[in-house]
């Protein structure tokens, strides 16, 4: 382990072009997929928490089930859909970063929506009562609830980002781990594990953790600003 830590630091400061490429691809994939998931999932979750309609319980249960989507199964499903012989084959997205982003969005959006729903439904009761009192329109209530959950949103985003960065099953399948194209940190770690280069694999894992830490710090700063 000590060796791995030393290796991690020497790798970071070596400016290795191969590693830099892998890190950039990882960031591109995780940042865009987590942001898109936040944009889609947050309003959906808040809406679900505030809305009153028949079958709400069922929808909520479905959403919470989707939070546990198995990544490998999602990967295979998307692989089939986007293969040359699949319905979206003409897009030629198999083995591309774009399809990896799509896979992450499929996996993360339910998590974002589910977490937002859970948070807002806790405060929904008093919230709706007050809104009724001052006769606010539903649109206004929705915006207020969104605003009310902005701190929570940062936490949810961080979770989504970390999950996107750490996922390996789906991106391995839809990305194919192609050198200089779809190779990300997790698939590089798996590759090195398979070839028996355990220390290098652990060193890469530490670098991955460091990347999450940096994003955490940035998010913390934004959270401060929002206060």
């Amino acid at each position, binding site marked *: 382990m000590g060796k791995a830590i030393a290796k991690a630091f020497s790798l970071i400061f070596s400016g290795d072009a191969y590693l830099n490429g892998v890190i950039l691809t990882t960031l591109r994939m995780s940042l865009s997929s987590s942001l898109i998931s936040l944009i889609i999932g947050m309003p959906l979750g808040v809406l679900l928490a505030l809305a009153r309609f028949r079958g709400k319980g069922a929808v909520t249960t479905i959403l919470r089930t989707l939070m546990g989507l198995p990544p490998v199964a999602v990967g295979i499903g998307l692989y089939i859909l986007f293969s*040359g012989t699949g319905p979206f084959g003409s897009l030629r997205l198999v083995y591309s970063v774009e399809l990896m982003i799509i896979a992450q969005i499929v996996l993360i959006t339910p998590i974002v929506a589910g977490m937002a729903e859970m948070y807002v439904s806790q405060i929904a009761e008093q919230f709706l009562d007050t809104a009724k009192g001052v006769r606010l329109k539903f649109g206004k209530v929705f915006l207020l609830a969104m605003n009310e959950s902005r701190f929570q949103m940062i936490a949810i985003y961080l979770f989504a980002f970390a999950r996107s960065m750490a996922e390996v099953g789906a991106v391995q399948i839809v990305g194919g*781990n192609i050198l200089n194209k779809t190779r990300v940190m997790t698939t590089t770690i798996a590759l090195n594990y398979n070839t028996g280069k355990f220390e290098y694999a652990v060193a890469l894992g530490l670098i991955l953790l460091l990347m999450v830490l940096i994003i955490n710090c940035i998010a913390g700063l934004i959270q401060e600003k929002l206060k």
Partner: protein
Amino acid sequence: MKKKLTTLFLVAVILSLLTGLVACNKPAEDDMTIRLSTTTSVNDSGLMDYLMPHFKADTGYEVEISSAGTGAAINAARFGNADIILVHSKAAEDVFVDEGFALKLEDRSAARLPFMYNFFVLVGPSDDPADAENADSVKDAFAAIAAGEHKFISRGDASGTHNKEVTLWPAALEIPEKTKSESAEFPSWYTSAGQGMGACLTMANNDNAYILTDKATFLSQKNDSDGDKLPNLKILYEEDDSLKNTYSILAVDPDAPFKDAITGDPLAEGKITINTKGAKAFVDWMLSDKAKGLIAEYGEAEYGEALFYNL
């Protein structure tokens, strides 16, 4: 406050568009990209990473190498996601050819082009309790392991290595049959790991177990820059004809009987685009004297012996 939130969202939208899906939906790939589907073990050996810069310098083609288990690697071609495949599982290749997926290129005698080989090796604990080292053949060595009920780690993942291993056991054990059935009960000394070569070797090293491996992965762990990662294991049997591991290239036929991935109906001709020109350039180069020379040298510098031999 609401303004801040709106700004935050706007920033998020812009960022995600910039980093994400803008590059999506680009027009059909230019012809200078070849999609090669290969098995994890080929990719893990590092051979392609070593050869491809030479190929690119000579021909200008960029090869995108995706790797998966043998089954998935071949399926990539069936799903229209590969221009060419490089695999080492003759039975699976023959099925691929019979189905009409492989293209016989002009100037070539067949669609399946075997071009290099190496040997699987049987490795095991240094004290070799089954005395596999002195067996008359590799099948005798496997029989001795089974008779003594010595621990054995199987890849168990339908890889080329695994497919070879199951054929080496005494027929009475019915290992191939058990491998095919979902609810198989293997003998207690036989572990079906379902993992890659590197992970299985580590497992065998920790358990003092026997294991069938490709030589490249074994040597790379033996000669790791941080020292010997497999101190408990040594090569017991190699270069037996039944351990020969032949690698072939197969170009994908653009007129192959592709099936719709959802309905299973035959696809209209021309729906799948295959870079046949690129595939031909790849085959011509891989079978050239220059590539043969490079393949023969691979491993010499690092391990003092070649890892692949030309056919």
